[in-house]
């Protein structure tokens, strides 16, 4: 069987998810042997900008017209598009305050010269193109990436967890940071896959992997209110990595009182 042709690209972002690929030091040469990597500008020169691709891995957020055009072209070239990282899957940090106009932000950071920059409201990849597989995480977990690559090589999509970080945390028997320690922990709302990394260091989950399906944000906000956290702090924490996600939006204090 011919090796699948692969592209790896970063839209606007920190390049952390592409770096996770390069951080598979023990597996990298095997991966490079199993795949025909045609397009990976961060790591190689002589990229094929036009050829059809079996799989394209895309990280980053769409924050400018160029990102949108590049993304659409990659979608047209590829049979399968895999969104990697919370920026690509949920919008990530750049999308935390989309209610503020980009015009205003441009003025603050660049002054009048910033007029020339064509910024748009930051959005995840799925706002513009069909996504065949979404691997979230800030950054993605190496094991999930390798599992996904192995599945894709066998013509399957990987099974990724559909339960919360909270479940992983309980399975590891870490002390509960939310109920016992009264910390602003988003473990109940966040999709698993990191083996409860932050709680394993005694640190609260900040939701960097994005929401689990059917996340009950209103219920968590109610618990947090009872613990004494302010509405602003709760909203800020909910609206950090995946603010565009509907399941994390709570419009009013009443909504969480009734949860």
């Amino acid at each position, binding site marked *: 069987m011919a090796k699948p042709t692969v592209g790896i690209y970063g839209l606007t972002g920190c390049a952390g998810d592409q*770096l996770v690929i390069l951080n598979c*030091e023990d597996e990298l*040469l095997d991966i*490079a042997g199993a795949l025909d990597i045609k397009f990976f500008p961060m790591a190689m020169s002589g990229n094929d900008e036009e050829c059809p691709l079996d799989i394209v891995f895309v990280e980053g957020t769409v*924050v400018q017209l160029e990102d949108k055009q590049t993304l659409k072209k990659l979608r047209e070239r590829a049979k399968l598009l895999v969104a990697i990282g919370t920026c690509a899957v949920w919008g990530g940090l*750049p999308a*935390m305050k989309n209610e503020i106009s980009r015009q205003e932000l441009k003025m603050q950071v660049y002054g009048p010269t910033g007029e020339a920059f064509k910024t748009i409201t930051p959005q995840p990849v799925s706002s513009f193109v069909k996504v065949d597989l979404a691997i979230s995480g800030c950054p993605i977990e190496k094991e999930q990436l390798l599992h996904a690559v192995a599945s894709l090589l066998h013509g399957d999509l990987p099974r990724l967890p559909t339960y919360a970080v909270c479940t992983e945390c309980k399975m590891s028997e870490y002390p509960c940071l939310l109920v016992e320690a009264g910390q602003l922990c988003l473990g109940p709302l966040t999709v698993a896959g990191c083996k409860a990394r932050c709680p394993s260091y005694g640190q609260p989950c*900040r939701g*960097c992997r994005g929401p689990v399906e059917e996340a009950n944000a209103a219920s968590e906000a109610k618990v947090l209110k009872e613990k004494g956290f302010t509405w602003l702090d709760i909203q800020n924490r909910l609206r950090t990595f995946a603010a565009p996600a509907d399941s994390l939006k709570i419009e009013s204090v009443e909504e969480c009182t009734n949860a």
Partner: protein
Amino acid sequence: MHKSIVINHICRVEGHGGITVNIKDGKVTEVNMDIFEGSRFFEPLVVGRAYDEVAPILMRICAICSAAHTVASLMAVENAFDITVSPQTRLLRELLVHGGNIESHSLHLFCLAVPDFMNYPSAIALASDHPQKVKMGLELKKLGNTIQEAIGGRAIHPVNAVIGGFGKVPTGGQLLDLKEQLKKGLEQSLVTVDLVSGLQVPDFCISPNVFAALSFNGSAYSLFGDRIALSTNDTRDANRYKEICRESVVTHSHAKHSRFNDKPFAVGALARMALNGEKLSGKAKKAKEKLGLSSYSDNMLYNNAAQAVELVYSIERSMEIIDELLAAGIKQEKSIDVRAKAGIGTGAVEAPRGTLYHSYSFDEKGRLAEADVITPTAQNLANIEKDLRVSVENLIDRPKESLAPKLEMVVRAYDPCISCAVHLVEVNFL
């Protein structure tokens, strides 16, 4: 003859950039390092956040330098609230930063830069002819990541370094295990120095450089320091960094440019060698002598050699830190009671690519009122343009096809982190 060279996307750099060079009547009229990476507006977006949310957000400016961003951010918060951390925390943070330095320099040398000197398009292509070299590079890179995982809790965007200290400190056993791996890494770093010493460094990019780096008030080389030293003999306190990095906005770049006394300057491994290299000791000192980095260098292509020396240095220093930690008896310390208040604080650290500044002001409730982050690549951009101009002037008679790769090589020597600065080379033969 009018011509222009336009490189739309510099490959093997982190982020999106390009180069535009315009030439008229055999003279270079314009050289732009174009930064196309989109703006994420980190500084205004983080305003209003509670003090303990700042580092987890701003470390994500960049993946490769996330350890340095984390440490600089935590230092800035702590300075604003007059928090002093324990000697153990200082040593663990230094070890975390060295982990980042080892990972970043290995990645740049073996995966991004060395293929340039050996005429390969990528490390993967290099691996087909020189598998042992690439394998060794990857092992060194992994060593840096292993340190960052052990100390920071994750190789990218550390979770364990927090205000006042660490969530969980490593055990003595973990540190001893790291030291064993560092011993092997030290041997590999010396082989790397041999490899780099055999590379022919081209001479098309020679022009005087002004260097800047943090200066450590002690007898040893360090990636930390309270003072900024320049090769012009000017110095400033680190919290007066704005007097060094006068930023300006240019239309061809989403990253601001920094100038000192209206002149470009350079930061990074070569700048640190120039300013602090005399303080090196042990095998790193010998490596520096072997690579001929004895004086101020006017050729930025030697930055790769400086990175090789620092690879040796960071490994040796990591072993020393582990010895110091073990001698003092590593222990879980009580978490620090943070008393938030209105205040201003600055944190500075030598990231792999040069001096990184985070400066914040907080309101009386400990919410962020203003953030200013100046990254090494942003400081280097004006100097990169200076070097590109010199290179084009030296190579102007060469065919266009051979010029563009040379210009990309100049950009890559700086190891630019464009995500950080907020991508490439285009030379227009008009």
